């Protein structure tokens, strides 16, 4: 019951502070940009190179390439910016103190926030996906992207890690930039790990960078099993650490 009450509070917060509105606008924009970029890139190249050599016509694959590029290079960080201070803001302001002294358990705060954050990640990705899907069907009615639904799953799973990471860093660092900073640092680490080719299928970052190969070939999905397991494991571990960290926090 208390968990539900706090989840309701979190939903009200994201609604009334217009975070969710910003999220919807931003991911809707990306949804439009994906097919548009796919469509315009050859035209722009033609114009700027002033050549008459025919470029291959863009396909649905180009649109989905943009989708995964935009999510992994922009969307993810915008999500981190929007929820960067989810814990630190409340800790700095002292708004949680009141509720904790009423018997609200500290871990309930973490779990409820995590739940609502993950819901919003699903919403953002889902919305962006639907918009991209609609336009892609309209502009590129081909069958070159057979497995778009399957390729979406790794993205959802990566969200678990992103949410845990935001909770952990914004609990640890008493600053609104904490969550963003943590996300950036971890993404840099993941990219460095990828320099070692053998690690690719184990690296969580593959869940947001290898999706296009799944769109083309569904058997590639299973190559990512180790990476999915590691991501879920890391997410759970971080969530556990966040609870421990918050329990020790003096308010």
């Amino acid at each position: 019951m208390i968990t539900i009450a706090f989840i309701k509070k979190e939903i009200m917060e994201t609604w009334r502070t217009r975070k969710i509105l910003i999220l919807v606008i931003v991911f809707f924009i990306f949804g439009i940009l994906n097919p548009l970029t796919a469509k315009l890139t050859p035209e722009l190249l033609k114009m700027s190179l002033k050549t008459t050599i025919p470029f291959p016509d863009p396909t649905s694959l180009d649109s989905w390439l943009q989708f995964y590029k935009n999510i992994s290079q922009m969307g993810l960080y915008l999500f981190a910016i929007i929820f960067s201070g989810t814990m630190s803001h409340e800790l700095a302001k002292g708004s949680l103190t009141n509720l904790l002294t009423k018997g609200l358990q500290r871990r309930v705060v973490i779990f409820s926030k995590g739940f609502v954050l993950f819901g919003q990640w699903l919403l953002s990705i889902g919305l962006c996906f639907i918009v991209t899907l609609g336009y892609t069907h309209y502009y590129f009615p081909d069958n070159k992207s057979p497995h778009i639904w399957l390729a979406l799953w790794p993205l959802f799973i990566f969200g678990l890690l992103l949410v845990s990471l935001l909770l952990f860093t914004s609990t640890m660092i008493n600053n609104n930039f904490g969550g963003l900073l943590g996300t950036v640092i971890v993404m840099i680490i993941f990219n460095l790990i990828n320099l070692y080719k053998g690690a690719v299928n184990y690296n969580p970052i593959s869940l947001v960078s290898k999706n296009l190969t799944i769109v083309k070939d569904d058997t590639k999905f299973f190559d990512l099993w180790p990476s999915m397991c590691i991501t879920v494991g890391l997410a759970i571990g971080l969530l556990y650490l966040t609870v421990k960290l918050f329990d020790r926090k003096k308010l």
Partner: protein
Amino acid sequence: MNNAQLLLDNLPLLIPLVILEFGLMIAAVVHVLKHPQYRFGNKVLWLVIVIFFQIIGPVFYFMFGRGETA
């Protein structure tokens, strides 16, 4: 394909895109002007960020720039 036709062909994409991007930008510009208390930076800095950095500029302002009494 000439430019006019290119534009016409892409209208279903361009119209909502322009509405959303400008909507976000205008909302941020209005907010910057109406609430001159920022967590850091000044009015000119935030106007530049909000107008010239599409999407990320307004989001950055709304999350980090706007003052507590927003």
